[in-house]
């Protein structure tokens, strides 16, 4: 047989053998995959996974961003074990996927940021849900619109047109923002709420991908406004964005802070049902910040193998425990809040149903 072919044959056999051996030789560690919310991603990537690996170095947990829509879709298809999502499952989704759980892991919030060149950081910009609904639907076009001026008496507002920035991927941030607009503006918000909505074509409106995209786009477009998850606050401040004081249900303008989010949680967490699919948006309370939400792990009750189920339960239990993932030191890194005790108990119940 010609020399070229003997070499080829030998090489092919060697490659095939080594590939086989490689498949056999690797131990089979349980791998937990997470994908989804870019609000939740920094917590997973920088705090929860390294923190859990300190006590359990052999568990491999692989987080990925991509938006809450991706997290839910991947969890439904079984591509990942944990779908990270700021949005809970909808009734149709639960009906079609019985046994798919929405498990709150922590409490998070969202800020509305704006980029007005030369804005004095000491001044506060106050906006309300109806005004934001008008901005994103194109009925309020300029920064010095009377509706905005009314909320900010005595503040010099520029005459430039507002550039609304929204998410172009399936986003939990879009979900909670549009829930806020629907709850506070009522019928004035003509679009519904969800992870993907058909935004009105406001002139100059820009789409961005992920929270990092929102930050960098808002940072580079003057006179823009964007809704950004709290975990990107540091990046937003570096990009010289300022946060808006939102008018809550009691009519007061509040800034997103640990006190205001804690007040909101105290006022709204009691109505959390057993399946924990509830909105905390625009709750009552004089000091409540209006845009807070649970960060969910979307997981299947029935896992493909007992090993995976055990590892998944172990990880999720650690994440919601006050000594583990819900410790203040961990949550502060992304400005998240801990789960209230009653909600934690419900999450524990849901986690224990995983098999």
């Amino acid at each position: 047989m010609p020399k070229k072919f003997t070499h080829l044959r030998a090489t092919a056999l060697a490659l095939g053998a080594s590939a086989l051996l490689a498949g056999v030789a690797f131990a089979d560690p349980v791998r937990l995959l997470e994908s989804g919310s870019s609000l939740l991603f920094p917590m997973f990537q920088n705090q929860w996974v390294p923190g859990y690996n300190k006590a359990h170095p052999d568990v491999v947990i692989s987080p990925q961003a991509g938006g809450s829509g991706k997290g839910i879709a991947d969890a439904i298809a079984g591509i990942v074990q944990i779908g990270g999502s700021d949005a809970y499952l909808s009734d149709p989704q639960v009906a079609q996927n019985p046994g798919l759980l929405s498990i709150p892991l922590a409490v998070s919030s969202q800020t509305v940021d704006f980029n007005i060149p030369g804005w004095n950081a000491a001044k506060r910009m106050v906006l309300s849900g109806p005004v934001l609904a008008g901005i994103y639907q194109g009925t309020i076009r300029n920064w010095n619109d009377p509706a905005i001026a009314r909320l900010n008496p005595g503040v010099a507002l520029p005459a430039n047109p507002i550039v609304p920035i929204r998410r172009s991927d399936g986003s939990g941030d879009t979900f909670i923002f549009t829930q806020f607009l629907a709850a506070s503006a009522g019928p004035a918000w003509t679009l519904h709420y969800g992870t993907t909505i058909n935004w009105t074509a406001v002139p100059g409106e820009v789409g961005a991908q992920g929270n990092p995209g929102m930050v960098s786009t808002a940072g580079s477009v003057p006179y823009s406004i964007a809704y950004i998850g709290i975990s990107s606050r540091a990046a937003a401040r570096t990009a010289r964005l300022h946060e808006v004081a939102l008018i809550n249900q009691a009519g007061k303008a509040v800034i997103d802070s640990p006190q205001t989010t804690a007040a909101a949680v105290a006022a709204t967490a009691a109505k959390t049902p057993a399946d924990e699919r509830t909105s905390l948006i625009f709750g009552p309370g004089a000091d409540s910040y209006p845009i807070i939400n649970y960060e969910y792990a979307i997981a299947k009750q029935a896992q493909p193998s007992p090993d995976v189920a055990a590892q998944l339960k172990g990880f999720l239990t650690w994440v919601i425990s006050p000594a583990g993932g819900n410790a203040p030191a961990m949550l502060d890194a992304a400005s998240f809040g801990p789960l209230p005790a009653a909600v934690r108990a419900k999450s524990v119940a849901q986690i224990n149903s995983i098999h």
Partner: protein
Amino acid sequence: MAGILRRVFAFRTWLAIAGGVLPVSLVIIFGFLVIYAWPAIGFNGLDFLTQNGWDPGDNYSSPVMLRGVMASPGAHFGVLFLIVGTLCSVILAVAIAYPFGVAAAVFLAEIVPGAIRSFVSFFVELLAAVPSVVFGLWGIGVISAFPDKAGVTAFQHVCNWIVATPPFEWIPFVGGDPGNGYGLLAAGVILAFMIVPLITSTVRDALIAQPAALREASVALGARRFETIVKVLLPSVRPVTIGATILATGRALGETMAVLMVCGNALGVLPKNLFAPISTMASFIASQLDSAGADTSGLVVKSLAEVAIILGLMSLVVNTGARVLLAMQTASQRERT
């Protein structure tokens, strides 16, 4: 082992079966797409191609029976903005790449001496091999380079200047809102860079392959060197030039990553000028596919399949047209010689 195989089938038959994987996989791809997208094709109808607005509907309300399919209330898909975005970006890319590519090919074929020519052409062809996502990263780097104190980048300054300066601000599709850098212009220019090497190398090869007799005859009639090129050589390679340009168009149609990173991801709006954000069919599929599974009615995934079919058909028409043209050219050249 070979003896056993030989007894079952002749070598030729084995070859035909193994070679059949290629045609069969193409049939599977298109067949699957059409069958899978059929419910969405029925749901969307012809409005799909003429309306704007990608609305998955209210996913958090109960599904209702819409046009014969259980769908989220208010679900309505129209991809005119994708078709327009794709066509605009590709036409812009070819409009930039064609003159530059042909002129560069002329320079390479006629002026650059032989030894240097193969070295330089080699470099030009390498540009065609750079992965799309690297082009996108470079594009982002260019758009966001050199920000001044207010955060306005150099590229943005250029766009602002063009929109405000007299000759340009009156041209219909150029004047108006300068945008934020991510839009049709960026996508078209990056696509142009990606397809120029295809045009240049093909036209250069065709020019070099033209018989010397053609050049000599032209010079004998008193034509200057450049006149020879423009009036004699380029017309004689016109089918190749057009064929190569159409093939480059086909490549530009399918480009995903570079466009996704610089196009601005418009949703449901047609571009008003060169600087407006757009979405192309390929970039839209890439950005929407991973969250499409969250839709319980399945219409989002299936409508994306419809977009994929339209994109595939466009590429098919463009590529087949190019090949027919090139085949005609080689046939007519064979007649000539």
